[in-house]
């Protein structure tokens, strides 16, 4: 009777497997399953309810022929590029300033980072108020004598996206600063000493030594900012709700509106699949750079 049977592999370490069930479900059902479901249904002509009536790329053709989607993409591109440039420039400059062994560093950091604790809805509404042409910045500057001064980004279709950009940058640059500051602090003090011994001016040290050394931090920041840009939604909802007209629409809002308001599911799925593709375009090269080269050292 006392045969020694090798214990079943499945029951080895069984508690850990039970503990990991939520993770496995999240990864497989939500992240993989739901994504595949959406991509598959983006090739159907689902309207009010999802159905598997395939129409090939028709939804995508319609999508790229829709003016509102093109405006959304254009807005996202402008917002994205400006937001990347400014986040990086401002974030790095602030981090460099904070790294000069200043007094009250904590106070300054606390002030610059606090918007990041606020939601996009709050951010959007505050800036909607500040940029209000009747009462906000425009009115204040007019009242001190410049009566022809115009600055009402939220009501001017041409520049409305920059009004959103101001708010987005206010909310997010503190976070980038913190990441960059962590990167700067991670740089060996000896590097600074060596460059001082060699008589290299500080700005040159930053430009030619420190910045190249911070490549991993920059890449992390790039990925985080880009992922955030694609998701921009609540900020626009709160600040302009896509207006004036459709001048400040963004892809995320297009998806939500087609799916839940216009009940045009297939179109919404196609648009969200395009969002997914844009994220993959950023993510795959990053994953390759980060993990591809040194898979063996783990």
């Amino acid at each position: 009777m006392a045969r020694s049977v090798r214990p079943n592999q499945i029951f080895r370490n069984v508690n850990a497997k039970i503990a990991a069930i939520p993770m496995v479900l999240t990864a497989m059902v939500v992240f993989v399953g739901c994504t595949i479901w959406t991509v598959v249904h983006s090739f159907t002509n689902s309207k009010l309810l999802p159905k598997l009536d395939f129409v090939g790329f028709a939804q995508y053709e319609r999508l790229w022929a829709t003016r509102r989607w093109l405006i959304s993409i254009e807005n996202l591109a402008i917002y994205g590029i400006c937001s990347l440039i400014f986040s990086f420039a401002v974030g790095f400059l602030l981090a460099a300033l904070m790294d000069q062994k200043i007094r009250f560093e904590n106070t300054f950091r606390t002030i610059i980072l606090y918007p990041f604790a606020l939601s996009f809805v709050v951010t959007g509404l505050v800036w909607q108020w500040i940029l209000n042409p009747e009462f906000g910045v425009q009115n204040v500057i007019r009242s001190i004598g410049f009566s022809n001064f115009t600055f009402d980004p939220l009501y001017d279709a041409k520049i409305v996206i920059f009004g959103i950009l101001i708010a987005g940058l206010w909310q997010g640059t503190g976070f980038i600063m913190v990441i960059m500051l962590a990167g700067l602090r991670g740089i060996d003090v000896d590097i600074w000493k060596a460059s001082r011994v060699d008589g290299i001016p500080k700005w040159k040290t930053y430009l030619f030594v420190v910045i190249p050394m911070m490549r991993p931090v920059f890449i992390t920041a790039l990925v985080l900012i880009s992922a955030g840009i694609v998701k921009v939604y609540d900020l626009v909802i709160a600040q302009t709700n896509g207006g004036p007209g459709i001048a400040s629409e963004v892809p995320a809002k297009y998806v939500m509106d087609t799916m839940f308001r216009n009940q045009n599911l297939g179109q919404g799925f196609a648009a969200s699949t395009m969002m997914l593709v844009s994220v993959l375009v950023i993510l795959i090269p990053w994953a390759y750079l980060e993990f591809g080269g040194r898979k063996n050292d783990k």
Partner: protein
Amino acid sequence: MTNNTETTSTLMAGPRGPKPTKLLSPRNIMLYGTLIVVALYYLLPLYVMVVTSLKGMPEIRLGNIFSPPVEITTAPWTRAWSEACTGLNCEGLSRGFWNSVRILLPSVALSIAIASVNGYALANWKFKGANVFFTILIFGAFIPYQVMIYPIVIILRELKLFGSLGGLVLVHTVFGMPILTLLFRNYFTSLPEELFKAARVDGAGFWGIYFRIMLPMSLPIFVVAMILQVTGIWNDFLFGVIYTKPDTYPMTVQLNNIVNSVQGVKEYNVNMAATLLTGVVPLIIYFVSGKLFVRGIAAGAVKG
């Protein structure tokens, strides 16, 4: 001053004793001047919110938004809290506040409980394939929510959770999992392995080690996770608007409906009071937690 510029220019020529530490050197004026201007810019919206919310409407129409209130009134605050209207409902923001609290508490508790056990299993009890799922989980965090929103509606409807608080709690738990699991996994991995081994030798099992050794040792990381989740869930808008019904809308959604409602006369002071009320919870957490908040958000950025 002339003496001062000389020191700066000769500084690079060679070491000449300790660096002079004059308080008002041009460098310091530039440095602190820039930082103060930047700090003022960042503080401005908060200041405008506070000032506007304390003024009466006549004063707002006459004055400019940056001037301090002549006559301080708290009426906008009480109106925002208990009278502001969304559509036909005029109960104010308090309803949204309590909805948010009801969403927040179970979501935070559930997501942290699950993610901590999960991170512990990944750190100390690796099983075959664990890393595959973990990698999928981390990459999943970058998928735009819009891609997964509709299938989740279907799943919640099948589970009979759609439109209920329970459904939203589940959604928050799922989407909080990548970052929290990463946080806990990295933390538990950084603990000395000898501890774990010693407990194993003494006969403690999976749950025994978790509750008696890991949990008591990792209170700081639990606080970090809590900060992360409380601010994240409180600030959520997208999930709230999709997975709940109007009478269970969280505060952010209700705030947006109040401020951006097209009916009636715009009461900017009430709007700003409402905005501040919504922002005050994460702000308190931020100012109280200080460095832990920074650690929490950096945890997502710095990979382990």
